[in-house]
């Protein structure tokens, strides 16, 4: 029964994120051509409506993840479907907390875009029925390693979306013409850059820990902590790209646009590691497949 409620709630949350995405898109569309900093009342209304729908969607989403755990009688991240839904739930909750604590509502459009696409794919393409774990996953590291991975995934995702907004805003600021429309409403490129950096600065040590925890687990399960399994290789590639991002931010000629591009590449690498590697390569992490 809890599996049924989980599925129902998961699909509902995907639809609600889509609604929130549409509302935020309308909000951006209304701002088109506006050359003032003042939001029109209708824009404001749509912004608050989008946020409200996102809040409802997040509540339904978290409920779905919890019910999934109850149905499976274990932590709900034993396969790709569960990992994606758990990680996205964390991302949306982090976003909502920051909306209220730091006024990050301008991230509404990209976050709902991510959530709508991610949840949509999860319930259609990646869905699998509830099942117990295989013996290789019976370990305390199943909780430690994957919580760290999902949380760093959430933080990388928001940081990467901010990097995309940074690239748009910075391009606009370089132009001679004054900005208008939604780009004008965004914080300055410098502020977006700093926010993006803070998400990455949080996520990178956590991601390093994820890899280390995975290596410890691998030592327990397979008797070697590193074996160049495709998942391990791509974890390292992801790590390298993000380390390059942090260094690029402090290097003349690289800070700004190039660093932000690295952050976006890092995010692509991260999600490729979680989806592409499972689908394209066979390796020891193949139990995480569809």
């Amino acid at each position, binding site marked *: 029964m809890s599996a049924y409620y989980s599925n129902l709630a998961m699909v509902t949350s995907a639809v609600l994120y889509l609604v929130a995405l549409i509302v935020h898109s309308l909000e951006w569309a209304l701002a088109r051509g506006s050359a003032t900093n003042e939001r029109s009342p209708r824009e404001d209304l749509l912004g608050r409506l989008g946020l409200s729908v996102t809040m409802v969607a997040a509540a339904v989403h978290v409920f779905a993840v919890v019910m999934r755990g109850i149905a499976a009688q274990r932590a709900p991240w034993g396969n790709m479907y569960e990992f994606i839904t758990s990680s996205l739930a964390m991302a949306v909750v982090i976003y909502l907390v920051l909306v209220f604590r730091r006024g990050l509502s301008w991230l509404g459009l990209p976050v709902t875009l991510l959530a709508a696409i991610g949840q949509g794919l999860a319930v259609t393409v990646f869905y699998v029925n509830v099942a117990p774990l295989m013996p290789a996953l019976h370990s305390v590291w199943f909780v430690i390693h994957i919580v760290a991975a999902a949380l760093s995934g959430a933080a990388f995702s928001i940081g990467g979306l901010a990097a995309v907004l940074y690239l748009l805003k910075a391009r606009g600021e370089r132009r001679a013409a004054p900005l208008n429309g939604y780009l004008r409403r965004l914080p300055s490129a410098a502020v977006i850059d700093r926010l993006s950096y803070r998400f990455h600065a949080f996520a990178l040590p956590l991601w390093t820990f994820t890899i280390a925890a995975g290596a410890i687990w691998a030592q327990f399960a397979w008797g*070697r902590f590193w074996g160049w399994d495709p998942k391990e290789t791509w974890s*390292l590639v992801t790590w390298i790209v993000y380390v390059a991002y942090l*260094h690029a931010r402090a290097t003349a000629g690289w800070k700004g646009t190039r660093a932000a591009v690295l952050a976006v590449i890092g995010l692509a690498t991260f999600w490729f590691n979680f989806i592409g590697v499972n689908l394209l390569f066979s390796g020891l992490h193949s139990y995480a497949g569809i």
Partner: protein
Amino acid sequence: MTEVSSPEEVDSGPSGRERMNRAHGVPSGTVRWAWATVTSMRTALVLLLLLGVAAIPGSVLPQRPVNPFGVTDYLTAHPTWGPWLDRLGFFDVFGSVWFAAVYLLLFLSLIGCIIPRCLTYAQAWRAQPGAVPRRLARFADHAAGSVRVPPVEILDAGERHLRGAGYRVSREEHGLSAERGYLREAGNLVFHLSLVVLLAALAWGSLFSFRGTAIVVEGQAFSNTLTQYDEFHSGVGFSARQLVPFTVSLDDFEVQFETGATQRGAARLFRAHVTVSRPGLAPTGELLEVNAPLSLDGTSVHLLGHGYAPVVTVRDGNGDVAFSGPVVFLPQDSNFTSHGVIKAPDARPERLAFEGVFLPSAVADPVNGLTSVFPDAWNPQLLLNAWAGPPKAETGSPENVYVLNPTGLTQLTKDTGDPLRSGLQIGTTFTLPDGRGSVSFDGLQRWTKLQVSATPGGWLVLASVLIGILGLTVSLLVRPRRLFLRIGRGESTQVEVAGVDRVDGRPGLGEAVAQLARAVGLDPPRADGVGAEGSAEGQATLAGTDVAERAPSKDDPRQERS
């Protein structure tokens, strides 16, 4: 790999690190140029990205150390460029020269950067904050006013406040210079040094580590000597003395598979009951599971795989038992359709051999004939072809037990000319034609694949990684900040305070400046532009502007919220 310490340095041509190298008197000329290039941040960045790109083929192409059969298949499938990829080392990327070149250059760059920085840090260990800048008004976060208190008391109050807030304070006659966040550089250095230690530990470990596997059937035992291994890999520094003496007997192996509709046939439980004997110690019963290896004097025993070993008895043409016991069959698919060979070289007058397939849950399929539909042994069947031939002289040369060498053997056929094929269930016997003998399927046992390994230096790898994570966290969380206070030299006590963050990404600088101002009795007027609210967008980087203040928020943007 260095972080440029202040924003002003970034905008001025060569990176701080290049200048630092010049300052450290590296020999002149080409060497100096090469060293400066290798250790420059831009080179490090390019090498870092190159390392990431270089690792990718290792995940796309089959790799010989992990999957040698995949490499053979790939070479067969791609006869044109396969051999070229092979020559260029693409089937062992992580052991290739070019991959090693990239990471060794990267580490050279890292070491070249980190050593001068360590020296600088060691010298600055107890250093006092630099002098108070002449013009505090140029800082975006700045407040000024006059206070009716003697200058000494202002300085006392300011110093008390700053020291209380964890700043290192240097007091001048007419001002205070304060700094905090020295741990950032320490964390950064620890992180980079731990990477060097990690590389050394990995190199050390790869010299002396070993890993071997052995298949052990229920009721049998493995003794830790080289001859007992089926496969064995070791580093160049390995010596057989590293193999600690022990024996592991497999008493019983439990398996369970998913019988429900979802993930039917997936493994649910592997549990090996073993007895461990060590010299001088009483034998102990242990449980060996997938995530719970045995640890014996620094050597680990892991449970890696399992399969079936049908117990068979072969009788020869004379009616004598020519072979009896379990024969290991190797699984070919997820339903444990297994392949194996039974050899009876001592059978007389003719030696006998059998090659065949074991099906743990055999079901007659109208298209494919008998197939296994489940990994557990629900309906075990043994399908064998038989071979016979004249006795062969013992050569003593090793033979692959899983492969039938048909030299000198003739496959037995039916009268129709089709190969003879037996279908055996447990407890049945198949009699060969023409009085050549018989084969009986007496029972079924399971086998497990055990991996025995040791990695000297593993603790150093773990320690360097954990310390590295700690250093990385500190270097990213600690954000250095400088605060200044200057008092006028005239009769009325004119006070100026200002602050600057040496790295960005930290909120609350304006509030820190305001607190200092209040602590010395200065009520900072909002209009003075603490936080550079009025400055142009994009120019506010120095000001430690909080994220929220650009967003349409009702909150007071100056409120510290972290």
